[in-house]
């Protein structure tokens, strides 16, 4: 291992512990918000935003995505497109429901 790379990693260690602290704070925040019994749509929005922030921190710092090669970004962009598609399609099947034909979308 070259000394330059080892120095870079030494600097990163501090960052890893800071990210750990941030992840803990966000985890406590997620649980705390759930006790506020907010309206469901708002609760879902907050929970997903916080989870996305936490997930991004893990991917960017622990998985070193921040300093990764372009080819990985392209593969992940394609994955994100398919992911969004897969999330929206099931919801779209509910859009053309005839009013009154179904007792309840529960939220």
């Amino acid at each position, binding site marked *: *291992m070259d000394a330059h*790379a*080892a120095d870079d*990693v*030494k600097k*990163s*260690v501090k960052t*890893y*512990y800071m*990210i*750990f602290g941030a*992840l*803990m704070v966000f*985890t406590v925040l*997620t*649980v705390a918000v*759930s006790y506020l019994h907010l309206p*469901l749509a708002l*609760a*879902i929005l907050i*929970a*997903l935003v*916080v*989870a996305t922030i*936490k*997930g991004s921190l*893990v*991917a960017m710092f*622990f*998985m070193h995505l921040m300093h990764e*090669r*372009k*080819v*990985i970004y392209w*593969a*992940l962009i*394609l*994955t994100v497109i*398919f*992911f969004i598609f*897969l*999330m929206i*399609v*099931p*919801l779209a*099947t*509910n859009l053309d429901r005839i009013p009154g034909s*179904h*007792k*309840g*979308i*529960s*939220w």
Partner: protein
Amino acid sequence: MEIPYTVEVRPDTGLSNGKLGVWLFLASEVMLFAALFSSYILLRVGSSEWPQGSEELSVPLAFFNTVVLISSSVTMVMAWASLKMNDFSKFRLYLGLTILLAVTFLVVKFFEYEHHLVAGEGPWHNTYYAIYFTMTGLHGLHIIGGVIVNSYLWGPGAKMWKTQKERFTNRIEIAGLYWHFVDLVWIFLFPVLYLL
């Protein structure tokens, strides 16, 4: 025959083959879990009643497991960083802690499952429990897979450090990428199943 590009990067991708391979594998894993999250949305939107997760499941236990899994991500990245800093004994300590934390997660999950199964709340109980057991079960299998790979790298696989330091460090980085992904999935499973 020597396997190419295990340490040196391929000129066209700028990456070692193992690293590109694991990222493509993780992309396929995203789609696997996305299919289940998508099923969850479809089931929930199409249902006339849906239980509040916090009333069905134990939030304190899941919170504890979230802390355990996030901690294991830190110890995993520290195991890799220790190798980069040429400190093998610290690597052993951090990877050992990662394995220990993963086993702790599984033990907690076992007690959670046992509690629900004894109460007759198995996957057959209702749609909510069906999707809960499917998603957490698949995630649990990923944890078991990670424990097996990490245990190999902690034990017999660590011999490689003596002869091929950089190649072994790359193996730990790749195992780490998988492990962080497993953590990332749980970060979404926790609020979706337990809190909403």
